[in-house]
């Protein structure tokens, strides 16, 4: 029943995203419309993939760092992506893929740095150090980014920020295809870690005694969640809240076992970002809201409702 409900929500969100928009497309012409085929459909699919990736990464990270309030944005990746994008613009690299690629490279650089810092205590990845390292790297990249902006030609760098916070307006079939090729591997790695993550919630020592290869699980989950987040940031800029609120909402509905939780988080995250992006496109048409604002506006009340129900039980 719950799964059916979730699939119906995803299907409705997808249908709304295709039907609604600033340009009026009669229902009869949906299949043949250029607006639908080259703009709305790829954008909707991209929103679904990005939202799903962020929520899945968030659910994995919460178990990894043993903190239910963890969010992909804590990993310092967004800061790295922003720095990459700003650098590319400051260096006048111009090609349609330059910005996403530079942002992706920046996110990967930040990930490598955070990972290295997470190993400071020895050969074992320490989740607590990982969060601190993520926050430190995020602050550092933000400082460098701001320095670059204040020292450079304002008009150009404004473009970088608009792109970085610009949501999904740059969606194309190319970016959808790219994500479809790229994302399955980290998604599969995270889904395969579902049971070990259940064990890890008991602590590392009990998890080892129950048969989990704890060090390898931590590394795999961290790298897979980071790779998903980096790709999501590279194609759509920073979108907060999905990675935090969706895993929590799904925990309330599905419980805490990661085998049902992780796929549910992926579908739920996809649906939330689809709906949010539709609202962002339609609400103040012909202008667009930033999709991150909408995810927060939709997400917070939903979260409060679920939290009330949860504490009432």
């Amino acid at each position, binding site marked *: 029943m719950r799964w059916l409900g979730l699939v119906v929500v995803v299907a409705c969100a997808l249908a709304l995203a295709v039907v609604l928009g600033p340009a009026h497309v009669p229902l009869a012409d949906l299949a043949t419309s250029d607006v639908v085929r080259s703009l709305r459909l790829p954008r909707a699919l991209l929103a679904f993939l990005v939202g799903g990736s962020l929520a899945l990464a968030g659910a994995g990270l919460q178990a990894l760092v043993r903190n239910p309030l963890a969010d992909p944005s804590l990993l310092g990746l967004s800061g790295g992506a922003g720095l990459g994008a700003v650098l590319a613009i400051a260096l006048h690299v111009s090609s349609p893929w330059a910005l996403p690629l530079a942002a992706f490279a920046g996110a990967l650089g930040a990930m490598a740095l955070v990972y290295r810092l997470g190993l400071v205590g020895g050969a074992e990845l320490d989740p607590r150090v990982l969060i601190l390292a993520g926050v430190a790297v995020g602050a550092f990249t933000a400082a460098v980014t701001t320095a670059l902006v204040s020292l450079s030609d304002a008009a150009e760098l404004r473009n970088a920020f608009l792109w970085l916070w610009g949501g999904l307006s740059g969606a194309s079939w190319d970016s959808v295809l790219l994500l479809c090729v790229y994302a399955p591997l980290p998604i599969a790695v995270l889904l*395969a870690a579902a*049971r070990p993550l259940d*064990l890890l919630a*008991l602590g590392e020592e009990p998890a080892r005694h129950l*048969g*989990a*290869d704890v060090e390898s699980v931590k590394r795999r989950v961290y790298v897979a969640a980071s790779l998903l987040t980096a790709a999501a940031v590279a194609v759509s800029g920073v979108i907060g809240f999905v990675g935090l609120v969706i895993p929590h909402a799904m925990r309330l509905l599905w419980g805490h076992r990661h085998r049902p939780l992780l796929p549910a988080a992926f579908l739920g995250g996809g649906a939330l970002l689809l709906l949010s992006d539709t609202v962002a496109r339609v609400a103040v048409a012909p202008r667009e809201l930033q999709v991150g604002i909408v995810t927060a506006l939709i997400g917070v009340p939903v979260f409060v409702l679920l939290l009330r129900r949860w504490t009432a039980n």
Partner: protein
Amino acid sequence: MDRELILDVRDVSYRYPGAVSDALAGVSLAVAAGEVHAVLGPNGSGKTTLVRVALGLAPPAAGRAAILGRPAAAWSRRDLARVVGVVTQREDHLFPQRVRETVLLGRYARLSLWGAERAEDHAAVERALARCDVSALAHRWIWTLSGGEYQRVRLARALAQEPRLLVLDEPTASLDVRHEMQLFELVRALADRDGLAVLLITHHVNLAARFADRVLLLADGRPAGDGAPADVLTRETVERVFAWPVSIASFEGRPQMIPLRKKEDRT
């Protein structure tokens, strides 16, 4: 009858990285099927370190540890979890769980990567719940359990692993007499009736003396005695190891320790 040797630790030493002295030196320990072997010692005497070395989590600097004849370090965590069940001193509950859910985690090492739990897994969980007398609690949330119920649930999870060796690290640390005795009686029955080898880490001298077949007494990481409780727990040895004057009485053929008050306190 010669019982199968499950855990065989010979003459191991271990030093924590950067430490100036050995946490363990020249310790041996052999646990056979159907036997309860207690490891006794004051706080910081190396009991938990010995478990880590025995289960391949810390490589010994000297000596060797073997489980079912195979070096402890050569086991993968997954294979070892099918042979050894451990109830640790502490664990976290990051997310709320129900009793049956947490016992089902004991089946992890027997499940395939993508496969669902099979009928035999659920059957093993039910057996473990029944064995520990917690079937009636199966639907309860973990946080609603009393201390004694909680420890029996954790023991049930270790039994769901269907192990040959059970390792219990201070299982009755915060339990009252009734729950303490219940748990020790259960552990004794698991060795006698189910043929499990049991390694019991505790600082309860009297309970170890009454329930264990053998006790290993540790002092500062060195063996201070290993054998039947009556042979090891003599007044001289216990006083030396625990650094307190005691009297040893005999009850049902087992030594029982009574700590003495200091002379100057008596009037």
